[in-house]
């Protein structure tokens, strides 16, 4: 019966080829037609195109229904493809739900299905892909079943612009600083950053006030390295903050700590009009200090400190003075060496071996 319908159709090479192979397969599967009477699946018109068979009334009904919407050629191609599928597989697939993937083992052991055979397969040509032409958005390669509820998003100029703008603040800064300082980019990205002072200063001119933004940022790895950086900009506070971050990373310096938690001994340091009286504290004491000094200690990894700031408490000077004092600390080994004495850590000696 079907043989009569296997006629070369108008135009299409693909369908011709399909028909050639399918005809062969149909011939092979002919004996199984009689066995497939029990096909209960509506969609499967497998081997049941026999109009004479009264038991496949459902199938014929469905076929008539489809005939209304599909061209005869299309119907044929559907039938051919469905003839190759075992109804059991379809049922199993349906049972596994909508996410199930059908597993079809390759029949040809010699062929590598990754390559496109130029004879049997036509190359896929998307229109408008020539050089210099406006490209179409990438056709998504979805392996799952058709999900029309999904929304496809394509990268357009606006999203690209937004992404680039945000990249300047973290990733780009880190990469460029890594080149400049020689530090690891990942290390720079993982630094603790804290803008301590963010204020708006004005430049007074004959024509009026010109606002300028000033940001002081402290940067540290919370483990004995800190950097203070000042950033100024007329554009806005964000630009100033970015500049400050940059300068702070450039100024990273190591600072000594006692037991990785507090300063070495006490110090009294005078920086301009700022008088710092800092005392080391026992473990668990916490940071009971000026708010600006607190931020610097957080960045540096100093966990216990007590101290007072006398006379001027100007935030900028306090920060600068404190950082300077920290760097000017002298270790006990250094002091012992200058006095010509040997220093022994009793804890190490006692608990060794």
């Amino acid at each position: 019966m079907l043989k009569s319908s296997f006629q070369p159709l108008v135009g299409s090479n693909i369908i011709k080829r399909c028909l050639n192979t399918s005809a062969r397969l149909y011939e092979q599967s002919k004996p199984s037609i009689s066995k497939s009477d029990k096909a209960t699946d509506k969609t499967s018109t497998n081997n049941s195109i026999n109009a004479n068979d009264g038991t496949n009334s459902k199938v014929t009904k469905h076929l008539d229904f489809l005939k209304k919407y599909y061209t005869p050629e299309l119907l044929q191609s559907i039938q051919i493809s469905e003839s190759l599928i075992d109804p059991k597989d379809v049922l199993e697939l349906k049972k596994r739900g909508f996410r199930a993937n059908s597993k079809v083992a390759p029949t040809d052991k010699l062929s590598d299905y990754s390559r496109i055979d130029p004879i049997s397969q036509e190359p896929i040509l998307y229109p408008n892909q020539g050089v210099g032409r406006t490209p179409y958005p990438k056709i998504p390669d979805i392996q799952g079943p058709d999900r029309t509820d999904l929304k496809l998003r394509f990268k357009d100029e606006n999203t690209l612009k937004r992404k680039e703008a945000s990249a300047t603040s973290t990733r780009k800064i880190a990469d460029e600083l890594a080149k400049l300082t020689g530090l690891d980019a990942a290390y720079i990205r993982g630094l603790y950053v804290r803008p301590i002072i963010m204020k708006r200063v004005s430049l007074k001119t004959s024509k009026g006030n010109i606002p300028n933004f000033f940001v002081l940022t402290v940067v540290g790895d919370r483990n004995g390295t800190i950097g203070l950086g000042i950033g100024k900009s007329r554009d806005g506070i964000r630009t100033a903050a970015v500049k400050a971050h940059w300068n702070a990373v450039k100024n990273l310096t190591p600072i000594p700590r006692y037991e990785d938690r507090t300063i070495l001994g006490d110090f009294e340091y005078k920086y301009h009009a700022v008088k710092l009286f800092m005392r080391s504290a026992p473990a668990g004491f916490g940071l009971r200090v000026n708010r600006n000094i607190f931020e610097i200690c957080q960045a540096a990894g100093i966990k216990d400190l007590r101290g007072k700031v006398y006379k001027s408490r100007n935030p900028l000077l306090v920060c600068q003075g404190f950082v300077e004092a920290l760097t000017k600390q002298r270790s006990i080994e250094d002091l012992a060496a200058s006095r010509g004495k040997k220093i022994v850590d009793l804890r190490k000696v006692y608990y060794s071996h």
Partner: protein
Amino acid sequence: MSLVHLANLCAHLKNCTNVNIASTSVPFTRLHLQVAVGLYKEGFISSLQKGSTEGPDLKAVDVTPDNISTRRLWLGLKYRNNQPVIRDISLISKPGRKVNLTNEEVKALASGLAVRFIKPLQPAECIFIKSKEEVFEIQEAAKRNLEGLALYRVK
């Protein structure tokens, strides 16, 4: 024993270290000698020599009533990495206020606690106590269970 003379000594040493002078002379008195010996033992000064106003004596010279007025003590000052070893030297007992410490207080100070108005010992700092006409470093005084007059501190 005069705290005024000791104050002068401390001030003079500070002044010298500020301008990186190699060696200085101080009046030759018993207290000065004890203090200088203490500093030398602790490594704050490099050398200690008897001498005259001209300079340190190359040969030993006896002190006689004739030359007593010209006798001086010469101290060699220490510097490392363009910084003086004696960063700070100051009195604890002032001429107007003497600080006599009990043996408990001496031990407390030696262990790093603050005693009365005396700030706690810092790393690489020394405090000298005068006990029975002899000057001891605070750690030694604590070990020997001494009490006395807190003279000065050096760091």
